[in-house]
């Protein structure tokens, strides 16, 4: 009895020390620990698959009992919304295509140019203290750690663990999640200058935008507008207008101070019950006051794990801070993280991570 107790005590000490060593190794991203995880996954996956098949009727029964009424309500609400959105979708699709063409013409990266893999959510986190989900695509499909994950609405999270045929996605709401983002603040004045072309045949397609010319000096065919340049590194010089074959056309040329101003920050998750926040937003005069409802998109950049301009959400609340710390912004996410089914993994890797063959 005493011998068994001593053996047990030794085993406890050994296991506790092993745990501490494993924590240290894993926090330093040791490949040995990753190997152990993969090995365990190989052994455990068949058992889990059997359990999933056996327990599926139980899960379906539970969801049927707990979600029946809410699904009925949601279904009728969604039908109404689909009818409303049909027209808007066509207009939006045209705008998106136009935007993508313009970006492609100017050699700028677009989401359409990035390969993506569609994946299905196959499991939630078994723990209450991590915001992750599991998807049914892995390294075989080209998925790597860090790639951004989207649903139809916007950004959902990023890949944190990859196995051969499945991956783990860390959601935006996880406190470990952080990503560089842009807050797109609208201009303070919403007025814009309209340039008219009444006779396209005689009108010069090139409209010089000269800050020395007053706006009332517009001719019947060509109009110059007054522009005050306030964006650093941007000097408006020549604006080319497309010649249109039919009668009168007009194009809005916003003045520099009327363009949307973008400021970068870092979005951080705060758990499932609290909205993510954006910190490190520069409190500059040019940026002005941040308004509730302005969009938040990924910042992109050579080191960012996500390409630019993926929609994340809108500003829900602005918490001002004293001094030069800048405000903290609470974010209303566009993606409904509680109801994820099919996701898209962008096979995007920043330039700094791409290896030359």
């Amino acid at each position, binding site marked *: 009895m005493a011998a068994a107790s001593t053996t047990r005590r030794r085993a406890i000490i050994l296991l506790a020390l092993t*745990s501490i060593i494993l924590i240290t190794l894993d926090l330093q991203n040791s490949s040995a620990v990753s190997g*152990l995880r993969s090995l365990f996954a190989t052994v455990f996956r068949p058992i*889990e698959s059997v359990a999933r098949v056996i327990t599926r009727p139980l899960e379906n029964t539970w969801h049927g009992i707990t979600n029946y009424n809410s699904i009925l309500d949601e279904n009728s609400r969604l039908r109404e919304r689909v009818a409303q959105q049909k027209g808007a979708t066509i207009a939006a699709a045209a705008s998106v295509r136009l935007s993508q063409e313009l970006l492609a013409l100017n050699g700028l990266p677009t989401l359409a140019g990035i390969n993506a893999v569609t994946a299905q959510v196959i499991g939630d986190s078994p723990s*209450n203290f991590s915001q992750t989900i599991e998807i049914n695509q892995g390294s075989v499909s080209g998925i790597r750690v860090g790639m951004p994950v989207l649903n139809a609405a916007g950004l959902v999270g990023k890949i*944190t663990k990859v196995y051969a045929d499945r991956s783990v996605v860390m959601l935006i709401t996880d406190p470990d999640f952080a990503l560089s983002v842009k807050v797109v603040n609208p201009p303070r004045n919403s007025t814009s200058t309209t340039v008219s072309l009444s006779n396209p045949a005689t009108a010069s397609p090139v409209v010089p935008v000269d800050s020395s010319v007053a706006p009332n000096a517009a001719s019947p065919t060509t109009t110059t507008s007054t522009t005050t340049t306030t964006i650093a590194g941007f000097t408006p010089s020549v604006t080319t207008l497309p010649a249109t074959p039919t009668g009168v056309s007009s194009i809005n040329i916003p003045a520099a101070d009327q363009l949307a101003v973008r400021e970068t920050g870092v979005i951080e998750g705060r758990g499932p019950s609290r909205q993510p926040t954006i910190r490190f937003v520069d409190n500059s005069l040019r940026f002005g006051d941040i308004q509730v409802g302005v969009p938040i998109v990924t910042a992109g950049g050579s080191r960012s794990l996500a390409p630019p301009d993926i929609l994340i959400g809108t500003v829900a609340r602005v918490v001002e801070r004293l001094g030069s710390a800048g405000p903290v912004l609470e974010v209303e996410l566009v993606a409904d993280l509680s109801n994820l089914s099919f996701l898209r993994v962008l096979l995007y890797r920043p330039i700094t991570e791409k290896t030359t063959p």
Partner: protein
Amino acid sequence: MNRLILVMASRWMRLVLVLFIVLSLQTTVFAQLRPFGVAAQVVLLFVVCVGANYGVSVGALAGLIAGLMYDFVLTTPVGLGSLVLGLAGATAGLLLYFFHNPTWWMRLVAITIASALGEIYFPLAQAMVGLEGWLQLRLIKVTAVVVVVNLVLAPLVLVITRWTLSERRSTT
């Protein structure tokens, strides 16, 4: 060879095999059925029941083994769950340490308290290794739901742990 057979036939090997089943239930059915948005923690319940049945050292050892297995399916650092569940198993055993023959309701009280503490240990351990952000008011709701679910499932799991870790006498 005989030693290997002895190890394979030991109650600890039986524990590992049963833990595979418990873990598979945790990652499938109990990850999906979330009353009030909280996942029930059957691995924690299993460890706590072992502690309540067999005392501090067996509870701690079962917790360390179960936690290590649980760590490999979680995204938190490997070893963290092991320490947390080891501590939870030891806590359950410690709560009944001074009672010679604890009654069934004493065991249930011990399971309730150890389950609550076990669920709180986890974010505390995360914070200690720098994974902050989980110590918030939501922890109260999570703990309450986990305790209630564990209390409901405890009679069944107590029987399973008793069967798993019972010493079997050789018939030969």
